[in-house]
């Protein structure tokens, strides 16, 4: 494993082909040949992506069979998920409260403008 496994995880996830590979693996383990099929890519190119994913601890590859089945490694996903989770929770909660503050600001402005109109009408009389 690299010195900072979480950095490797996020670098691995930054590539759309690798995310597509992971989406496929989320359905169940499969072979490199099977994985390569939907992509317009050579087997060596796919193998390179798999190495990055394996290095990041996102997938593991079986040793038991000739075709070395690829599968998702849940531990790294948990870490990455927790990571975004804390950040999201902070901002999600904050933004939910911000919605409330904005509603009050809108109501307040309506009151002010209604008072303004009443004043204008009073002057006209």
């Amino acid at each position: 494993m690299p010195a900072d496994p979480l950095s490797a995880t996020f670098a691995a996830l930054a590539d759309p082909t690798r995310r597509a590979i992971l989406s496929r693996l989320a359905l169940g383990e499969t072979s490199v040949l099977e994985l390569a099929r939907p992509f317009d890519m050579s087997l060596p190119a796919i193998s390179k992506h798999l190495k990055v994913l394996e290095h990041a601890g996102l997938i593991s590859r079986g040793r038991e069979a000739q075709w070395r089945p690829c599968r998702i490694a849940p531990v790294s996903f948990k870490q990455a998920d927790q990571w975004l989770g804390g950040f999201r929770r902070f901002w999600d909660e904050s933004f939910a409260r911000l919605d409330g503050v904005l509603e009050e600001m809108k109501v307040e402005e309506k009151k002010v403008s209604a008072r303004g109109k009443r004043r204008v009408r009073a002057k006209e009389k």
Partner: protein
Amino acid sequence: MDARVNSKLKVTTPSDFEIEMTGEFDAPRRFVFEAMTKPEYVKRWLGCAQNPMLACEIDLRVGGAYRFAFGGPDGHVTTLEGIYTEVTRPDRLVFLERFSMPGFTSDEYQVTSTFVERGGKTTLTTTILHSSKENRDGQLNAGIDKGVEPAYERIAELVATME
């Protein structure tokens, strides 16, 4: 990840150095801008149950400083401190920020917030640009809540948020 299904917040990592957050608000942008830059408003919404806001000081002008402090579950205080480098009311805000907690102060990173209004609704996009990938990952890492066990089944959701 958040438990709510209709989470209004989108978090992505558009490059190795960036974190981008997008939020939608049902209000004109002049209100969103005010709510994000006046202490009397900021105090009322910024923070979460685990990290309530303790202090909020804002000097909103180019070169002006701000300081936000948050409490933590084990009593430690986390602060966000920075200097405004661009203040264009009500459409853009840029600042240089550092994040500190006991025993750790981050490198400086740049935050750009843009406020786009359409049909009375505002889209707020905040991009946090770090000087290195390690620093970016460190910031995300700081948000970890070790008490929560997110579901492994959420893998598809996690990948989706990064697209």
